């Protein structure tokens, strides 16, 4: 039911809220389109006119620097007009409801909302209530979904490794609270990844982690053994006060990615992290800055992938001949 909300009556991608319900063909197409935009971002004049005359609103109810910046750059490189609305300092703090905020910005005749919100389901809620001509792109809702991050990570993995069907991928850290992990697991499985693992202490896993379609490990050495891709997740400081973990030190000792631990993985394994990094908490600086790290490549890919998603959703770009609904 919820999955069909992403498509219009003609079966075209109208919103981009979650990887759930998207098929392999569409995910591959997003990466192909991103590939074609990669060259744009390396040119002297970094603009294409695909979304000229369109207005995109970055609606961030939760602070973010990297994601908002890359969305803004992506929109500008597609020649769209961009409005940044930082709600943390705006109307909802004066008691305006989420829906009223949406209605007000909608009245300014905009074409797309890029939404980040601290509550799971916020992007779905907004998508369900916006005017028919407006598209919603989820830039992260609670612990639920962060589909553009997942796609830029898939794009990065494809660049480095090619075929997903031969890969073992380990996602390490706070799976429970991670929208990135949930979206990555969906994307990896949809793309036919040979094995998806999660590695975390029991307190940082959801009740039915295996039900997400992963192998669950509680020991980092075992979890990393023989993997081709390691995705480290950020550990929020508040997990200590919430009694999820005893200390940063203990976490780093048992779940932090060090050079020694990295050696358990395949020799040519890549190390990824959605950022921002907590050096010395989930990852050793030498690994984060080391030869196997592709963390900065991920950031660069963020722009191309977000250009792809926005142009496909808003302009139908690259959508011909793609059987989208699964």
């Amino acid at each position: 039911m919820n999955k069909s909300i992403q498509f219009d009556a003609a079966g075209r991608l109208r919103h981009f809220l979650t990887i759930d319900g998207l098929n392999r063909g569409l995910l591959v197409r997003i990466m192909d389109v991103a590939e074609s935009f990669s060259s744009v971002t390396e040119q002297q004049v970094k603009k294409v006119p695909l979304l000229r005359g369109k207005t995109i609103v970055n609606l961030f109810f939760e602070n973010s620097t990297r994601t908002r910046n890359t969305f803004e750059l992506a929109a500008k490189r597609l020649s769209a007009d961009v409005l940044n609305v930082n709600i943390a300092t705006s109307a909802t703090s004066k008691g305006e409801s989420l829906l009223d905020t949406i209605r007000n910005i909608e009245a300014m005749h905009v074409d797309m909302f890029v939404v980040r919100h601290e509550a799971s389901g916020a992007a779905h809620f907004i998508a369900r209530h916006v005017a028919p001509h407006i598209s919603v792109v989820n830039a992260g809702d609670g612990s639920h979904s962060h589909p553009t991050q997942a796609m830029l990570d898939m794009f990065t993995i494809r660049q480095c490794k090619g075929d997903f069907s031969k890969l073992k991928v380990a996602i390490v850290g706070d799976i429970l609270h991670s929208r990135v992990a949930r979206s990555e697991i969906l994307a990896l499985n949809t793309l036919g990844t040979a094995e998806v693992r999660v590695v975390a202490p029991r307190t940082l896993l959801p009740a039915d982690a295996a039900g997400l379609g992963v192998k669950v490990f509680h020991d980092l050495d075992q979890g990393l053994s023989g993997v081709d891709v390691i995705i480290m997740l950020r550990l929020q400081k508040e997990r200590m006060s919430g009694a999820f973990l005893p200390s940063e030190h203990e976490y780093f000792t048992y779940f932090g990615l060090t050079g020694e631990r990295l050696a358990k993985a395949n020799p040519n394994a890549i190390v990824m992290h959605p950022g921002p990094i907590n050096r010395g908490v989930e990852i050793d600086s030498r690994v984060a800055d080391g030869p196997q790290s592709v963390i900065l490549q991920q950031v660069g890919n963020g722009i191309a992938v977000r250009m792809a998603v926005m142009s496909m959703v808003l302009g139908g770009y690259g959508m011909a001949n793609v059987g989208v609904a699964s």
Partner: protein
Amino acid sequence: MSGEKIIIRGGRVIDPVNGVDAFVSVSVDDGKIVAVGNVPNGFAAHQEIDAHDQIVCPGFVDLCVRLREPGQEHKATIASETAAAAAAGVTTLCCPPDTRRVIDTPALVNLLRERADGAGKARVIPIGALTRGLLGKELCSMMALKGAGCLAVSNAYAPMENLLVLRRALEYTTNCGLLVIVRPEEPALRNRGCAHDGAVSSRLGLPVIPYSAETVAVAQTLVLAEQTQARVHFGQLSCARAVAMIAEAQSRGVKVSADVAIHQLHLTEDAVDGFDANAHVSPPFRALADRDALREGLAAGILQAICSDHQPHDPNAKLDAFPATEPGISSLETLLPLALQLVESGVLDLFSAIARLAHGPATIMGLDAGTLSVGAKADICLFDPSLEWTASGTDWLSRGVNSPFYGSAFKGRVTKTLLGGRVVHSL
């Protein structure tokens, strides 16, 4: 009340307490049932009600209905919700004390009863607060609440400050003869959760309320109930383990009873997939095994009552991201049809379904209601078991517009409700 003589003819009369299931007449005089079966000699009815193709049964007794008045009239009022109750065949309803102005004084109890009497659609039994302001710290004047007509006290969703206050409160109720209704939930384990700790919340990344939030509270309360000999009723259970714990206590003779909300007998955690805020309830919908255990517990009589757990909301309460919406369903008007679905699917026989809606809850509260015994108040529900309809919400009498059952097709609907021999609802 009215002094009117009424005969209800031609219907299938079902009265579980008296073992009646027969096509007979029901005669009503002066608000009371005077005969089930042969009409008394010389009984000259002022009104005859044709009940052909209808089932005639006792008016339902609902242990948990939020009326929202006083204090939240933007959601609903006593007048609107008692009218909805009448349309649901509910003739007696208990309202929890967690109105915006907490029902913790006799004055509030009287106010509610007066307004309900004025509306005249259903009998309203206010449940008094267990602690002052529901703050969980100081006991309410329970003797005075009882004097004003309270039969039970409860702290509703509000937590007790500690177990000592709960122990003292339970002890104190034993010398007032008051029932204590407990909605079992350990607040620290509830945390800020809004969904069952299972497959769906794992996928959707929703904050969880584990079933242990319920079982821990049930365990604590059972231990204290056993020690204090207080009469405890658990409201709106949600999980299999709690049913088993209560069954075990009952088997040892502990005086505990329990009910379940009608929607918990139907929906599971799957209902929140897609972030449907109308399926946001507290306690949350749990796993299929939990739902089935609740059904079995109900059939076995471990749970003696089905309640609506009616919670009408204004539209805004549900217009937000799922975790930020207010929990609860406007559930009165689907109570009977959902109960009939349980009969249809073989969970309960019709006798038991009516017993769990009428005499079961009446017995828990110590009310003389839920029967068609001669001499009883003529609180009667007539329903057409084969009437097909679709819940649209637009023709509902409840002001609450929040239901996950909108659009559902139902079979069976209340056609007439009598309260003290007076027709208070007619389809």
